[in-house]
């Protein structure tokens, strides 16, 4: 359709707007030129497709096929007869092969599937993971092992298959399908490969070697008459599939790569494919040319992966960087667990509701950033949301605050104090709350206060929430001046009763952990309890309780206690030698 036709069909006004669609629109936000956006056509893969491909899909198919075979066996009696016939063809052939040397070799190989060997491997793996504090991988190993052992236990009882009707040459225990020793060793080796060995050649070699060992063990057990072939094959397919899928879902390589050093970061790895995907996505979706993606300020952030995006050299913009926060399913889950923990420990904080998806989380943060900006709250300029993996990973891009310092690192004078308290006043007047006022989120740039990390912000908060924001700001200002000065300046913008309410609402739980530790350090070094000082100066106010015993909290506490009991009993069972591990 040419320009003339477009104007005829849509009218001149709409036509002018449509002229821009598909063309190279250019505009600037805080000096950054945005140009050349590109819409991803239907069917084109996202910048970083979901990481369940290749081996993951293969193992998923294996596990599904095993489930279907089981279903077939349960539903159709003739199926088990057919499987039995196939089993005995191979078993009879193996029995024909029996001789002394082969039997000795098979018995030797079968030792690898002994319970004590599997236990040593599992406990060794767990201890190694605990030593390097790789808790996520440790839990992934536990989950995979428990799924395989529990499924094996239940299915053995349900299916109740006897041992092969051939002379049995070694010791066995319980029903034969699925083969628990084969499944137990297979899931252990697969989990070890994924939890202990860095991605690459070594892991591939280990997994290949484990595969060879497993096939040899399975064959030896068939030869010895311990397992039917279908018992061993099913376990051989199902157990590693559970391990692979567990690690793909709970500790994906892209997010939690294995590196052998202590104190592994919870942040996503932005090198390799993810880094390339971010560059491509920012170019396509925002029209901004990024040349490098690097982690930035990760020590102060647990809820997202903060990044610095270096822009391609361009005379048109004075700033060379953008700030970005990468959100993934992992962060969403962390957010849920964090809120769940707070609910159990501290009661229902009135607005601690969880997000249902990563998209909702970033949509909310984008929205609150824009509301803050529109309300005149000094904060970083938002550039929008970039999709990395649909529904699973998104990037929030915003202005990089050059030359800014954390409030606790800056010189805090009266002007800064007034400015900071003025920001709280602005929040109150706009009906907003930041909810995470702490030194790391209050920056000083060009002698002005700028709030960052507004993700926890809320619209029309409760008065209690607003009071907590004020108290938290006064506390961190007092850390860099004195409580008396801060109180005196606060009276210029707030009523004494507002301040009294703020400190009546202040509890350990309402103070961010960074502020708590700074307060404790201040108390140790100066002998002054800042919160107590503010309470002394403000009019008397009764403490405001935030403990709320709801049905949900009681239920959650009971579930948590039950889970703890299960974990403890499992540990006791393990120590006494009767458990699954």
């Amino acid at each position, binding site marked *: 359709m040419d320009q003339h036709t477009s104007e005829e069909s849509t009218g001149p006004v709409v036509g002018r707007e449509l002229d821009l669609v598909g063309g190279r629109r250019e505009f600037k936000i805080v000096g950054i030129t945005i140009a050349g956006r590109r819409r991803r056509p239907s069917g084109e893969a996202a910048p970083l497709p979901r990481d369940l491909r290749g081996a993951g899909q293969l193992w998923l198919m294996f596990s599904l096929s095993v489930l*279907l075979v089981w*279903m077939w066996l*349960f539903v159709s009696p003739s199926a088990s007869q057919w499987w039995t016939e196939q089993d005995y063809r191979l078993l009879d052939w193996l029995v024909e092969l029996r001789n002394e040397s082969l039997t000795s070799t098979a018995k030797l190989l079968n030792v690898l599937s002994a319970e004590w060997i599997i236990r040593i491997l599992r406990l060794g793996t767990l201890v190694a993971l605990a030593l390097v504090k790789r808790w996520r991988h440790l839990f992934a190993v536990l989950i995979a092992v428990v799924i395989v052992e529990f499924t094996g236990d239940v299915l053995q009882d349900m299916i109740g298959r*006897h041992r092969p*009707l051939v002379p049995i040459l070694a010791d066995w225990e*319980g*029903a034969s399908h699925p083969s628990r020793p084969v499944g137990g060793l297979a899931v252990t080796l697969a989990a070890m490969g994924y939890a202990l060995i860095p991605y690459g050649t070594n892991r591939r070699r280990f997994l290949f070697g484990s595969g060879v060992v497993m096939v040899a063990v399975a064959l030896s057990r068939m030869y010895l008459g311990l397992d039917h072939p279908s018992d061993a094959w099913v376990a051989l397919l199902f157990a590693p599939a559970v391990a692979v899928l567990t690690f793909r879902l709970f500790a994906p390589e892209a997010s939690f790569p294995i590196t052998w050093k202590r104190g592994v970061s919870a942040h996503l790895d932005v090198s390799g494919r993810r880094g390339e995907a971010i560059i491509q996505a920012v170019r396509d979706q925002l029209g901004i040319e990024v040349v490098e993606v690097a982690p930035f300020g990760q020590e102060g952030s647990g809820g997202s992966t903060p990044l610095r995006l270096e822009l391609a050299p361009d005379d048109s913009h004075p700033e060379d960087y953008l700030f970005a926060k990468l959100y993934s399913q992992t962060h969403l889950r962390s957010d849920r667990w964090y809120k769940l923990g707070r609910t159990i420990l501290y009661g229902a904080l009135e607005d601690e509701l969880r997000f249902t998806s990563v998209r909702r989380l970033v949509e909310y943060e984008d929205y609150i950033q824009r509301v803050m900006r529109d309300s005149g709250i000094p904060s970083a300029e938002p550039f929008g949301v970039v999709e990395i993996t649909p529904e699973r990973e998104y990037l929030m891009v915003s202005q990089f605050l050059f030359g800014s310092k954390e409030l606790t690192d800056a010189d805090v004078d009266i002007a800064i104090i007034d400015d900071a308290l003025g920001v709280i006043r602005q929040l109150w007047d706009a009906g907003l709350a930041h909810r995470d006022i702490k030194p790391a989120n209050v920056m000083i740039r060009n002698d002005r206060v700028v709030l960052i990390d507004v993700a926890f912000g809320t619209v029309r908060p409760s008065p209690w929430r607003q009071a907590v924001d004020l108290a938290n700001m006064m506390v961190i200002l007092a850390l860099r001046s004195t409580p008396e000065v801060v109180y005196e300046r606060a009276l210029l913008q707030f009523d004494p009763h507002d301040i009294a309410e703020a400190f009546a609402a202040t509890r350990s739980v309402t103070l961010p952990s960074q502020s708590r530790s700074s307060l404790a350090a201040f108390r140790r070094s100066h002998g002054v309890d800042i919160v107590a000082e503010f309470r002394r100066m403000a009019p008397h106010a009764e403490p405001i309780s935030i403990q709320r015993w709801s049905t949900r909290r009681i239920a959650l506490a009971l579930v948590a206690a039950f889970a703890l009991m299960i974990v403890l009993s499992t540990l006791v069972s393990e120590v006494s030698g009767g458990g699954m591990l």
Partner: protein
Amino acid sequence: MTLRRLLLVVAVAVVASACGRLGTGLPACGAPPSSPNAANVLSVQALPEAAYAPCLNSLELDWDEVEFSARSGLVRLEFERGTDTFLDVRLTATCDIGDAKEVRSGQEDVTRYEDVVVVEEEVRLTIVPDGERPLAHALGLASQLNGSYLEDRPLVVIVDVEAARSATERVGEAAAVSDFVWIIGDIDVDEGTLAMRPTAGGEWIRGIELDDALDEMEDMVEDIQYRGNWYLVFDGGCITYDFDTEGKLAVSIARQADAAIGLYRNSDLIDAARDAGFEPVER
């Protein structure tokens, strides 16, 4: 359909299809050798050289659960009520029968031994009256107490009427067949008291009133028990019954175990397998 939904559907289908097959995990005495259940076969496979393996004829109503397990050299049936295992039946290649006494087994090729401690259901009390008046008094007490219970155990009262023999002799005889002995003399008749001694040991308690005597007896009475072992020894194996019961179950456990647990002839099953073209054991 999403992956998650597909997995859920498959998992539900597997569980649903499996539900119809639950409960096939106990060795049944009535299972024909040509179509035994898996537990029967596993029992034979665990100890193929044994002539018999334990099996179940039926389950008693007051037995909550029976757990079957088998591995090389061992077949085990654990019978539970609540959380307690009251009977543990094990088939092993050999067993140590200790001081167990041989009893009739009812089968030519099976020798049965028993070594059990039984606390009977009845509490036996013998009253030894010393004179005419005490005899009348004792008979009155016997008719009053017979049919009453101590700790859920029926009290059986016997009055020794053979006044011609010495009291010592009569008390000695009474102690051999009773749990408690009372002696009642003329003074006791007048004062409403008696002298009491538990036969399991202990001193005479003299001048004790009737109600106090019954309270003392109630404190001393043990629960009904059936503890110990049965051994069924046969060619290639031995089945040990390990009983640990008390209360009402102890009264009937021996009879129930005899009726519920039987012997499955392993050779029948091995022959049937051979007839079907399998060779489960070396010839």
